[in-house]
């Protein structure tokens, strides 16, 4: 609020709206910090966070640059990326909210009229109430029914049928009959039942859409994993921040240690080691010197380097993976949701019944009008009101239960697909393992209190992956950092400082196998701390539970044979190593061709195509943005127990969905004979419809404990 006064004098230029994604923001305190830190930047008019989407919208003048705002957020402790507007998918719930509100309003008001008609209003009163109902009902049905009409029309145009076809036919005929009754002063109008039907169905749709929106908020857009810009070194030696889209071959980027590359390129100055685990699944750092090629999306781990851009944007290795993924989603799009499968059987059955009823009453000599009224009553009573709720309510309740246990469900069909899975392929780095170097516990135990304190202080001054791992492990042991002076990080060598007058270093050991770091306190021998990418804590147990659920597991990794066989030995799984993204995708396709339904669990960019090709997929929350986007489920936390939990919850959900179908169809079996006999009035229809819907909802609520 206070920042509003600061923008005097810049009114001439229109304010700029910038949106940043701030993934680390998750509470009121964070929101306050983000907004305050941005408001403190000169030239910023206002900053407003959106916790659901984890974004902040900043309104600022022309003098404020993107890096300034990112630096301000970094100062407050939040990592942020500018958000490209085009990436933002439209909300699924929003277009349904207005029809839902209209249906609710109209339904309640028409129901008021109907109650007085049911309780015996007659003559002109009844006619007037019918006319008022029609005045409210017809426009409301036209507006609120639009999502169904357009979906049914689209399906019919392609020569297919879905749940919306019988709904649309039922709604249209019922409205037509009601208008006819109103005009001719008849006894029964069905506006109330029709609107209630639309209200329930829209509520089901909105629940389904809400689940998708909620999960999408936790999942970021493709290609964000590449740094969204770089410092470009001009010919005269000046540097300039350039957005990723503006990078062109020939430019030279300066990449600091700890930064991700924004484009593919060739190293021209300096030497460093790169973390390619998200791109290839390889866990060891890869060294590169001048003349070597490096890829967008990899992390520069050690020393600042200059990179000449060879490919940017759509030409990068990253974009190639995105193209593979686009082509991979076929088994997903070919999947027919259970509600649509049910309606394929249901719709013809219902329409045949209505036609038979009409023919039967005609043969009995009742005349067209009377036969038509009864046939339409059959259509209304069989309109799949409870069927429309049977699937979404169950899935939303289960998704809510899973979310409480840290598992995000992208959409309802994901649960249907996961419930059928009988084969699982797991990536190694970052999926079976934690995906980051963890220091050897025994080596940490051997450190004295002083050594541990100095090690933490030194490690916290570096962004090298080993230092980050060491700092995290020591902090978890509640070690307090020692006070150091003259801290300096020498790229490729390590961190040095002065502690109690002595020179202390944390750096690369003289001789050690694999990943390790050496701590030297200036006296006594240096301590060597080994690192390894360890299995997730309960990986073995989780794999055992998956097996008990009838799901055969194996490893499919892009990492080298040595690292993979070590993990295969520990878990007792069969493994395939050195698989490229296309190999992974092919592996899944060949399993699918033998009739298996495959679950892919992976995290990296290289898993993207496989995640998209599998029947269902799960990614850990630490996954790359691409991994999170391509997968159906995302679990937070370190425990792999999320896998069996998600499978069990999905299977329970499908059981409840099938029960719901039986309940909904059971109600029809009772009500249809009454309707065919011509005994159903609007009152009976309204009562039956709401009762069956309530029963289905109540049954679905049993899923609240599904994620145990």
């Amino acid at each position, binding site marked *: 609020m206070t920042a509003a006064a600061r923008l005097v004098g810049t009114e001439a230029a229109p304010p700029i709206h910038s949106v940043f994604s701030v993934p680390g923001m998750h509470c009121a305190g964070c*929101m*306050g910090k983000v907004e305050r830190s941005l408001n403190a930047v000169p030239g910023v008019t206002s900053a407003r*966070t959106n*916790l*659901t989407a984890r974004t902040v919208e900043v309104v600022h003048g022309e003098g404020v640059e993107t890096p300034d705002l990112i630096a301000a957020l970094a100062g407050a402790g939040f990592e942020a990326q500018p958000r490209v507007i085009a990436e933002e998918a439209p909300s699924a719930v929003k277009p349904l*909210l207005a029809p839902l509100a209209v249906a609710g*309003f109209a339904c309640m008001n028409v129901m*008021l009229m109907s109650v007085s008609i049911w309780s015996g209003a007659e003559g002109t*009163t009844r006619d007037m109430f019918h006319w008022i109902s029609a005045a409210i009902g017809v426009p409301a049905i036209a507006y609120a029914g639009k999502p169904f009409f357009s979906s049914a029309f689209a399906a019919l145009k392609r020569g297919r049928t879905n749940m919306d076809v019988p709904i649309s036919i039922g709604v249209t005929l019922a409205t037509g009959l009601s208008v006819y009754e109103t005009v001719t002063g008849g006894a029964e109008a069905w506006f109330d039942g029709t609107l209630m039907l639309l209200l329930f169905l829209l509520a089901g749709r909105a629940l389904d859409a809400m689940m998708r929106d909620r999960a999408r908020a936790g999942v970021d857009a493709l290609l964000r994993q590449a740094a969204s810009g770089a410092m470009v070194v001009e010919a005269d030696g000046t540097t300039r921040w350039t957005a990723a889209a503006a990078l062109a071959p020939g430019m030279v980027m300066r990449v600091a240690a700890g930064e991700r590359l924004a484009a593919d390129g060739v190293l021209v100055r300096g030497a460093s080691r790169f973390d390619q685990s998200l791109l290839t699944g390889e866990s060891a750092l890869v060294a590169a010197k001048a003349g070597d090629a490096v890829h967008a999306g990899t992390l520069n781990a050690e020393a600042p380097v200059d990179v000449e851009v060879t490919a940017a944007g759509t030409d990068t290795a990253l974009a190639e993976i995105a193209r593979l993924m686009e082509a991979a989603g076929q088994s997903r799009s070919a999947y027919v949701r259970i509600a649509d499968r049910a309606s394929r059987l249901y719709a013809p059955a219902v329409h045949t019944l209505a036609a038979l009823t009409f023919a039967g009453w005609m043969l009995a000599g009742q005349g067209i009008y009377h036969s038509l009224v009864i046939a339409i009553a059959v259509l209304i009573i069989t309109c799949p009101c409870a069927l429309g709720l049977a699937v979404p309510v169950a899935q939303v309740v289960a998704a809510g239960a899973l979310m409480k246990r840290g598992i995000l469900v992208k959409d309802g069909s994901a649960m249907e697909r996961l419930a059928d899975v009988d084969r699982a392929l797991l990536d190694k780095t970052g999926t079976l393992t934690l995906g980051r170097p963890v220091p050897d516990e025994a080596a940490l135990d051997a450190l004295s209190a002083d050594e541990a304190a100095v090690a933490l202080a030194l490690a916290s001054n570096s962004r090298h992956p080993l230092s980050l791992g060491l700092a995290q492990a020591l902090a978890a042991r509640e070690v307090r950092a020692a006070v150091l002076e003259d801290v300096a990080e020498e790229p490729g060598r390590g961190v040095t400082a002065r502690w109690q007058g002595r020179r202390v270093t944390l750096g690369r050991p003289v001789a050690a196998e694999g990943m390790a770091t050496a701590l030297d306190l200036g006296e006594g021998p240096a301590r060597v701390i080994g690192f390894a990418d360890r299995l997730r804590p309960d990986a073995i147990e989780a794999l055992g539970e998956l097996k008990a659920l009838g799901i055969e597991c194996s490893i499919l990794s892009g990492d080298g044979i040595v690292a993979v066989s070590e993990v295969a030995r520990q878990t007792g799984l069969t493994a395939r190593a050195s698989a490229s993204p296309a190999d992974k995708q092919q592996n899944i396709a060949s399993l699918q061709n033998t009739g298996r339904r495959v679950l892919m669990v992976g995290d990296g960019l290289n898993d993207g195509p496989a995640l998209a090709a599998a029947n269902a997929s799960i990614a850990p929350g630490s996954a790359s943005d691409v991994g999170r986007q391509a997968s159906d489920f995302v679990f937070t936390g370190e425990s792999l127990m999320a896998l069996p939990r998600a499978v069990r919850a999905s299977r329970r959900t499908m059981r409840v969905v099938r029960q719901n179908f039986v309940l909904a169809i059971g109600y029809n079996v009772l009500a249809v004979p009454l309707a065919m006999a011509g005994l159903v009035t609007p009152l009976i229809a309204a009562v039956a419809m709401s009762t069956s819907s309530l029963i289905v909802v109540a049954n679905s609520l049993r899923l609240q404990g599904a994620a145990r």
Partner: protein
Amino acid sequence: MTSLAFLLPIALGMGLCGLAAFFWALKRGQFSDLDGAAARILIDEDEDEA
């Protein structure tokens, strides 16, 4: 019966007002950040810059 002439328009009018208010709120983005709205009450405006 005459009471109906008053009560019906009043009831419908009030309902329409509610509907209009809902649409207004929808348009103004009141439903775009439901989690944030719940958390916003907890933001401490007087907190020092930390």
